[in-house]
């Protein structure tokens, strides 16, 4: 980001001045030359005042005085006076940014010049391609400027050469370190690490709630599935045994049926008929029991909540009869009436008379009650539903009594037939014929075995059904857990990426910090040794981790404390040049009186070497004639694009400054 121009109006000695700066490398150095007191420092002050609202270094003779040009203020017939500084920057992408700060002052009593506050004192306009954005005023404008040139690092770009040696007083390392941090944008890493750590903590929190039971559930499913296989085998075995018992029972019956004794044959025929009838009755019993169960399932929930349903129904009916439930209407209908200015009865409600107003109020009351109206609809629907449910169970008592009676009748009929069957069996077993007796006994034995096996099979089937249910439920739970597990796994992946990101960011930050410090140290040292006129006196410049500086003497003792003011200035210049070259921060450099304390030969040496350390940087040097000797000018000639001279115009009540382009 380069400065394109600075324009000043009524700022201290500058009445109406515009300075355009050299911008095209390699000739991107601007020299502004002026005698002491001409206004060089106030030009630098105008820039910092425009950007931040303060002046970098106010000369003793201006201290306590307002920034307004008092000479012209006195000569002006106006009461209100404007001080304005405007800077146009050109960014790396070619877009422009214009910063304007203006204050208004008025003539007060006794020579006072009070400021007239204005919310639009600071304004920023930004170019984006063909469009201009803004102006943005006040705090928002300051925010934009601070992001381009953070105020905390301002003094590392806009230097006052007279005060440069102050930078290397003791214990300034911490400030320099934090400036390097900001200049190198390492603060972005601190924010990145902090925000990524916050996301990591969030992912971790979410993952904690998803500890999976999937493995345990999967094992449970496996165990039950294996047991189900065993159950199937047992069931098959029981069914085989039952079939065998049935076969043997049938064989005995066949033998008895085919016996030569007519009486036995008749008994067997009777027995056979009875068995069929009993089986039929058993079917009827099963049907009745099923019907009974269905009736209970359907009616019991309503019967159990019958009292509550009846109470609700009575309550709603009571309210409706008392007219306490609002009528049913749509909000949109009322809104339409109000918009058309009509009542429900079609009379006009827009008039100012009492009748019209009262109708309108009534319609508005309906609008307020529209939500209640929607609720009343729900209440009426619920009441209809309750009535239907109560009607459904009205005949429950009669139905269940009728089913119970029917069941009892069929069971009694079945018991009767079983009794007859038992007598027949008893008679066969007590036969005098040995074979008949034996077959009868055996059939009874196989029949009992069959009944026992039927019981066992039913139990086994029940157990298998339970196991099926367990497997189904566990599988459903397992699926949920697997979904949770997948989410858990993906959160753990995100967590790992955060860890990787944090670690990488820390490593990059530490690498840059180390490299920046090493490079600044190397360049400061090289530059210092190249610029210093007392060759072979110092070993170089060391920068510690805390950014405190040491200038070791060749003898090994510390030399920083014994450096002359000029040597300190060289050290500071070397450091600033190194800092700028290493930082990669794109802010122009302006140095006021860079060579004031340095004698002619070293100055020439500095002029020759300094530009090498400020490659591609837009640099402005505010110099006196004494500093900007022909030798210095010659050394800088390949980099200087514009040279100005500040002319002092003496006035009775204070000097004015005019800036003249000389090449």
């Amino acid at each position, binding site marked *: 980001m380069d400065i394109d121009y600075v324009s000043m109006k009524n700022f201290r000695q500058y009445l109406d001045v515009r300075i355009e700066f050299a911008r095209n490398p390699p000739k991107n150095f601007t020299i502004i030359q002026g005698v002491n007191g001409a206004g060089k420092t106030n030009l630098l002050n105008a820039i910092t005042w425009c950007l931040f609202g303060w002046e970098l270094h106010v000369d003793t003779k201006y201290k306590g005085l307002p920034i307004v040009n008092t000479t012209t203020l006195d000569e002006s017939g106006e009461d209100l006076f404007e001080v304005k500084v405007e800077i146009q920057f050109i960014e790396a992408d070619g877009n422009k940014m214009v910063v304007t700060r203006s204050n208004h002052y008025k003539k007060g009593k006794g020579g006072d010049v009070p400021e007239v506050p204005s919310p639009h004192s600071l304004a920023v306009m930004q170019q984006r391609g063909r469009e201009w954005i803004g102006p943005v005023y006040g705090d928002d404008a300051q925010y934009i400027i601070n992001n381009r040139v953070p105020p905390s690092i301002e003094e590392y770009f806009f230097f006052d050469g007279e005060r440069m040696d102050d930078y290397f007083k003791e214990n300034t390392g911490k400030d320099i370190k934090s400036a390097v941090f900001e200049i190198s944008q390492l603060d972005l890493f601190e924010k990145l690490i902090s925000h990524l750590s916050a996301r990591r903590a969030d992912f971790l929190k979410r993952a904690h709630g998803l500890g999976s039971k999937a493995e345990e559930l999967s094992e449970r499913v496996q165990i039950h599935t294996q047991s189900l296989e065993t159950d199937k085998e047992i069931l098959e075995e029981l069914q085989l045994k039952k079939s065998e018992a049935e076969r043997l029972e049938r064989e005995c019956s066949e033998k008895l049926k085919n016996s030569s004794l007519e009486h036995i044959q008749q008994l067997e025929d009777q027995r056979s008929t009875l068995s069929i009838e009993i089986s039929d009755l058993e079917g009827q019993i099963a049907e009745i029991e099923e019907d009974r169960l269905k009736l209970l399932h359907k009616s019991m929930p309503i019967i159990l909540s019958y009292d509550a349903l009846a109470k609700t129904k009575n309550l709603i009916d009571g309210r409706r009869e008392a007219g306490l439930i609002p009528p049913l209407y749509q909000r949109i209908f009322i809104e339409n009436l109000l918009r058309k200015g009509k009542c429900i009865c079609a009379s006009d409600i827009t008039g100012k008379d009492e009748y019209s107003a009262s109708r309108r109020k009534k319609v508005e009351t309906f609008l307020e009650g529209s939500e209640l109206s929607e609720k009343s609809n729900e209440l009426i629907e619920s009441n209809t539903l309750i009535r239907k449910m109560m009607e459904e169970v009205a005949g429950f008592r009669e139905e269940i009594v009728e089913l119970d009676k029917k069941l009892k009748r069929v069971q009694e009929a079945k018991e009767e037939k079983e009794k007859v069957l038992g007598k027949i069996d008893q008679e066969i077993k007590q036969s005098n014929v040995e074979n008949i007796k034996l077959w009868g006994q055996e059939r009874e034995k196989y029949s009992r075995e069959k009944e026992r096996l039927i019981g066992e099979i039913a139990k086994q089937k029940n157990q298998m059904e339970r196991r099926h249910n367990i497997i189904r439920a566990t599988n459903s739970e397992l699926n949920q857990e697997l979904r949770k597990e997948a989410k858990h796994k993906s959160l753990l992946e995100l967590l790992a990426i955060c860890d990787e990101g944090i670690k990488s960011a820390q490593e990059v930050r530490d690498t*840059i910090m180390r490299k920046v410090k090493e490079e600044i140290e190397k360049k400061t040292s090289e530059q210092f040794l190249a610029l210093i006129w007392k060759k072979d006196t110092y070993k170089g410049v060391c920068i510690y981790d805390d950014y405190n500086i040491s200038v070791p003497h060749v003898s090994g003792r510390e030399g920083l404390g014994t450096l002359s003011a000029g040597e300190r200035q060289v050290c500071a210049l070397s450091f600033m040049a190194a800092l700028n070259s290493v930082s990669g921060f794109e802010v122009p450099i302006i140095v006021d009186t860079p060579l004031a304390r340095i004698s002619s030969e070293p100055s020439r040496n500095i002029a020759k070497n300094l530009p090498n350390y400020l490659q591609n940087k837009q640099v402005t040097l505010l110099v006196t004639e004494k500093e900007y000797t022909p030798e210095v000018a010659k050394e800088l000639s390949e980099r200087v694009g514009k040279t100005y001279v500040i002319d002092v115009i003496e006035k009775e009540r204070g000097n004015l400054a005019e800036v003249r382009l000389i090449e």
Partner: protein
Amino acid sequence: MSNVNRRIIETIEESDFPKDIKNMLKTLLNIELRNSQFKNPLYGKDYDRAVIELAEARHRRESK
């Protein structure tokens, strides 16, 4: 609109981290730089998006 310091970008590029992590760092630094130009920025969604996109890209690569 200013850019992330080229030294930072160069150091990230020269590092041995996986390419997707390098890209994520650059994305997050740009988010920080962009957000530093607003007064009350919200970070959560931008950060989540960057992390999730990286995870998804890794899944896509693994499934190929």
